[in-house]
C-alpha cells in the first residue's frame, strides 16, 4: 500500500494538533505516577469535567452560545479555560482526598489503588450519564468560538482553524509553565523530591499530603484545559467523552517514559503523528491498531519508555 503524499502535509499538521491535546492530558497521568507510582485511571473523567463545566457555565448559566469576536473573544476563551481548569482541579483534589488518601493511610497494596482508580472512573462517568446531569446522549458544546474562521488558510495544505490554533498555542504555553513550575519553583522541587524518595522527602520536612494534592491539582488543571479545547474542537460533550483521549494520553505517557514530564510530551506528539500519518498510509480504520501496537512494541523493547522514568528536566 502506498502513502498518498498529497495528504501527508495535512496529516502532519493534524497529527501535531492531536499530539498537543494528548500531551496536556498525559501530564496528569505522568505526574501522579511520578509521586505515587499510581496510574490514575480516573484522570479521563477529570479531563471530561473541564469540558462539562464549561458546557454548564456557558451553555446553561451565562448563555454565551453565539460566536463572539475581538477582545470579547479573548476574554471569553480565557474565562472558559479558567473555568474548565478549576473545575477539573477541584474534581482531582476531591478524588485524591476521598479515594486515594484513605488508601495511603492504610498502606494499601498497589492493586487496591488500581481497582479504586477504575471504580472512581466508572462512578464519575456514570454520574454524568444520569438524567439530572448530562444524560445519555451528546450535548452541544457552547459555540462561543467560530468553527469556520481560520488563521491560516493553507499551511502545508491544511486549513488551520482558530480553534486548532488556540489548541496548539494554549498547549505550548501550558507546557512551558509546567516546565518552569517543576524545574524552578519550590513546589516543583518538592514534587520531584517526592517522586525520587517519598520517605526521605517527608523526613526532610516536606508535607507529603499537601504536595500530593498539589500534584493532582496541577495535573487536573491542564486536563481541564484540554477538556475545554476538546469540547470546542468536537463541538459536543458527552458523559464518556474522556475515555478514548484518556487512554491515548496514557499510552503517550508510557511511550515517553511514565513519570517523565518531557517524555510525556514527546510521546504524545509522536503518538499523534503516528496515528494521523498511519490513517493515510494504511487507512483510518487502522489508526488505533497502529497506535496501540506502538505501545506494545515500546513495552517489549524499551519498558521504561523513550526517555526513562525520571521527572526533572
Amino acid at each position, binding site marked *: 500500500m502506498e502513502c498518498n503524499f498529497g495528504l501527508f502535509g495535512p496529516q502532519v499538521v493534524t497529527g501535531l494538533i492531536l499530539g498537543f491535546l494528548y500531551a496536556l492530558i498525559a501530564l496528569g497521568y505522568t505526574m501522579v505516577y511520578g509521586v505515587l507510582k499510581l496510574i490514575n485511571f480516573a484522570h479521563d473523567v477529570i479531563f471530561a469535567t473541564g469540558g462539562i463545566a464549561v458546557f454548564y457555565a456557558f451553555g446553561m448559566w451565562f448563555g454565551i452560545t453565539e460566536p463572539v469576536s475581538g477582545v470579547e473573544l479573548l476574554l471569553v476563551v480565557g474565562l472558559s479555560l479558567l473555568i474548565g481548569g478549576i473545575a477539573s482541579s477541584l474534581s482531582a483534589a476531591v478524588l485524591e482526598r476521598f479515594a486515594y488518601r484513605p488508601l495511603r493511610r492504610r498502606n494499601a497494596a498497589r492493586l487496591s489503588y488500581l481497582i479504586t482508580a477504575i471504580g472512581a472512573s466508572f462512578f464519575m462517568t456514570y454520574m454524568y450519564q444520569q438524567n439530572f446531569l448530562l444524560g445519555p446522549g451528546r450535548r452541544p458544546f457552547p459555540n462561543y468560538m467560530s468553527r469556520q474562521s481560520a488563521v491560516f488558510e493553507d499551511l502545508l495544505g491544511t486549513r488551520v482553524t482558530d480553534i486548532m490554533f488556540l489548541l496548539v498555542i494554549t498547549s505550548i504555553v501550558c507546557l512551558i509553565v509546567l516546565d518552569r513550575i517543576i524545574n524552578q519553583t*519550590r513546589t516543583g522541587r518538592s514534587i520531584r523530591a517526592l517522586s*525520587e524518595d517519598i520517605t526521605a522527602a*517527608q*523526613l*526532610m*520536612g516536606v508535607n507529603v499530603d499537601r504536595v500530593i494534592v498539589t500534584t493532582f491539582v496541577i495535573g487536573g488543571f491542564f486536563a481541564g484545559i484540554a477538556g475545554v479545547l476538546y469540547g470546542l474542537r468536537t463541538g459536543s460533550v458527552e458523559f464518556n467523552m474522556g475515555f478514548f483521549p484518556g487512554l491515548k494520553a496514557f499510552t503517550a505517557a508510557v511511550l515517553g517514559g511514565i513519570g517523565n514530564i518531557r517524555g510525556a510530551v514527546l510521546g504524545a506528539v509522536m503518538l499523534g503523528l503516528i496515528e494521523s500519518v498511519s490513517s493515510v498510509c494504511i487507512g483510518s480504520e487502522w489508526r488505533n491498531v497502529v497506535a496501540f501496537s506502538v505501545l506494545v512494541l515500546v513495552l517489549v523493547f524499551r519498558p521504561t519508555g523513550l526517555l526513562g522514568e525520571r521527572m526533572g528536566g
Partner: protein
Amino acid sequence: MDSLLKVNNVTMQFGGLRALGDVNFEIVEGEIFGLIGPNGAGKTTLFNCVTGVYAPTEGAVEFAGAPITGKRPDQIVDIGICRTFQQIRLFPNMTALENVIVGVDARHRTSVFGAIFRSPRRKREERESEDEALRLLDFCGVKRYANDLGRNLSYGDQRRLEIARALATKPKLVLLDEPAAGMNPVEKNGLRGLVRKIRDEGTTVLLIEHDMKVVMGLSDRVAVLDHGEVIAEGHPEEVQSDPKVIEAYLGTGGAATDGKAGQENSASDEPGTVSARAREPGGEK
C-alpha cells in the same frame, strides 16, 4: 543544662519481636551523644521512633519539654529534629544544591499561585534559600559539587551531602545514622571534624556509630543499646570499661548463635545470658 530530648520508657513491638524494650535516656543541649550497640540492637528503630517514622508501642518521646510522639515526620522536622540515613537516601536525580534546598524549603510555606506569578518576595526568598544551601554545602565541604547530580558524588561526599541536607532544616537536634560507614580513615577523620563543627555551631548531635574509635573520640556521653535495652550510659571511658558492654560486644561464651533468634524474647532475658555470643565489634577495632 536543659535536657533537649527525653526518651521515656519507649517500647517498640513488631508483632512478636520486641525491637526496643523500655528505653530511657536524655540528651542535653549542646552535647554530642553517641548511641552504640551491636548489629540489630535497635539503634535505627529508636531513630525511627524519634523522627516519627514509627509510633512507639509504649512510652513517649519529649523534645524541648513537649511530647512529640504521634506527630508526622514532617511536623517533627518543623519542631527541630532532622536526620540522615544509614543507607544513603539522597534524591539521586537532583543536583547537590537542589537536595539541600529541599531541606531549606521545608521552613517556608509554599503556594502554587505564588510559584506561577513569581512575586518579588518569592524571588528574594528563592535567592536566600540558594545562598543558605550554598553556605551549608561549603560548611560540609561539598560546595564544589553543587551542580552535580546527587548520584554522581562519591560515597563519602554523598554522606556529607546528606548531612548538609539535614542541617538545612535548621534542626536543634540532628540525628546521624552511621555517618562514617563505608568511609576510609582519611574521610573518617574529616567527618569527626565536621561533627564537632556542627556542635560548635549550636546544634546538638545524636550519633549512631559502629566505629568505636569515631564514637568514643567524639561523644560527650554514650549510651549502649543491646537487644533493645540500654545496658550502659555515661562518659565514653566509663562505658568502655563496663563489663556488660564488653560482654555485649565481644561475647563471654564462645558459642556463636544466630543474631536474630535471640531478639524475640530479649526483653525478659538478662543481658548476660542473651549476649553470650560472639558479635562483631564493627569498624577497625
